[in-house]
């Protein structure tokens, strides 16, 4: 089992038309700050490295960094605390509805894809659905509609309906990835932020066999 680095992950996803937006990897504070200013505050700083699989639990992620001063403090603190790392990710503070998306190997059925609603939906209500890969458009829509909280993705209490077309496309691309990349064991996107215009993968993890 091997955890892919951010760069490896990004390259692999690119092959399947999955773009990681608003996120860049840096080792130098100066360049990192230029990028943060470009995407605009607030931003997120996250340590990336093979040893950091659960960034939140390992205190390797700091969200909602509001200005240049705070940025420098946090960047340096993380840099000192985590010696063994690939670098530090600067990421836009994404907005939208939270989803979890994953790929895995089932002993009986082989590669499976999972989608669920993030936050309490997945943690408390276990609101997730599965399909065996490969899936088609119809399967992708059905697995979203199966979620108990599906309605929250639609035009719900004043929030706009998320871009379902894009979301379905992402699921199909992932299904394609697990079928073609035989050495990929599992993949986790948790969370993914979806809005009416875009899909942003905030946290990603790919494990090879």
């Amino acid at each position, binding site marked *: 089992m091997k955890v892919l680095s951010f760069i490896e992950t990004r390259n692999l996803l690119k092959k399947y038309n999955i773009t990681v937006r608003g996120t860049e990897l840096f080792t130098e504070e100066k360049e990192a700050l230029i990028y943060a200013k470009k995407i605009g505050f607030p931003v997120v700083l996250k340590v990336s490295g093979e040893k950091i699989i659960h960034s939140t639990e390992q205190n390797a992620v700091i969200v909602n960094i509001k200005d240049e001063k705070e940025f420098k403090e946090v960047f340096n603190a993380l840099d000192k605390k985590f010696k063994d790392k690939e670098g530090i990710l600067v990421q836009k503070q994404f907005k939208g509805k939270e989803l979890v998306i994953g790929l895995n190997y*089932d*002993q*009986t*059925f082989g590669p499976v894809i999972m989608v669920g609603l993030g936050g309490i939906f997945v943690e408390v209500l276990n609101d997730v*659905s*599965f*399909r*065996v890969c490969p899936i088609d458009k119809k399967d992708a829509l059905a*697995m979203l509609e199966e979620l108990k909280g599906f309605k929250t993705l639609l035009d719900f209490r004043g929030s706009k309906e998320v871009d379902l077309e894009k979301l379905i496309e992402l699921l199909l691309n992932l299904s394609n990835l697990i079928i073609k990349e035989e050495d990929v064991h599992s993949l986790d996107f948790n969370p993914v932020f979806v809005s009416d215009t875009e899909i942003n993968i905030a946290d990603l993890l790919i494990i090879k066999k």
Partner: protein
Amino acid sequence: MLKYIFNPKSVALIGASNEPKTVGSGIASNLLKSKKKIFFVNPNSKKVFGKKTYSSVLEIKEGVDLAIIAVPGKIVNFVASQCVEKKVKGIIVISAGFSEVGNTEEEVNLRKIAQEGNMELIGPNCLGIINTKDNLNASFAPLTPSKGNIALLSQSGAILDAIIDISKNKSYGFSKIVSYGNEAGVDLSDYLEYLATDKETKVIMMYLEGINKNGRKFLEVASRVSKIKPIVVLKSGKTESGKSAALTHTGSLAGNSKIYSSVFKQAGIIEVDSLEELLNTSKALSFYNRSQNGVGIITNGGGFGVLAVDYLDLDGVKIPKLKKETLSKLEALEKVKTKNNPLDVLGDALADRYEIAMEALLQQKNIHTLFIIQGMQMMTEPEKTAKIIIKLRKKYNKPIICSFVGGDFFKKAIDMLEKNKIPNVEEIKRATKVIKNLTYEK
């Protein structure tokens, strides 16, 4: 290739026995009921059920299509090799003691023997198979099931026996029954493939604990077969405790139940929750084809109607509004002031009110299935109503599910319905489950 298993010309039972209450005598007495050429093999007794025995399969002069092996686990592979030598076309290994108890090596060897000998292998660790068409009961099930168009594949012998007993002398019956055991040779997908083209089979009913092997093949085959014939499945081992019971039972891993349910959906398989739902649904499908989403409800009690709507709505079954044309046809029902779907023809309804209501609703295009509910009231005419239902079922050819709710009062009427292949489910919720399972989205 399975034709030699289900339609053999000659059958040898290896391990035939006279001793009452044994597997060897159970199968022997079941086999004698068929008109096939039967040979009994047992080196230790001269006669079984008055019939001459052979000391080994090799001693039989005539050809043997199918051999049933019911000998101690340790000598199964030896006997199987003899069957290869005899050029037997297929074997059913009843004997246990293989992968289900961790003895994988012996099972692999058995599989090799069959494969290299070009011989079909059913089991091991199974109850056998039944083909009602030829009265062939190659199993130790205590009863032979009624004939019909349902095929049953079961991973549990006990559930299979129970289903045979429950369905005896009912309005439905079976074409083929298979207890498939450890699937060392023929696997679940192979049976589905065979049943897809089997003329006697209209519905495939399955009891499943876990898929032993070839999960992806199962998904691929079932997706194809379910477009030809409906497949109904009851899957057990959904909880952690249930799972460990299954693990010790058939040696299969009852995987994540969510994944199983997803596979069933993907494959177009109808998944049910209970043995009763399995039977009710398979029965309805043995009478009717699946229908599009849209049910009309007629009742003589408002309460039943509300219950039905609650259940159907939760299950995603559509209850279309009545159209203008339908409403004008219903004008004949003078006493009925409120006309909706569900249509309450009121407690004092005689059979004629049901007839007018049914004719009108059956003619509405987006009503694809009819749900007729009747409770006991002073004026209720169960048999007359049943007659009308039977007549209109023939006239419109749309599925009609009945729920005559009660006891003795409806017994005769229910018998009439069932005899005419109209299912009655005596409880509203269970009836709505059948309607849901009959429905497919176009």
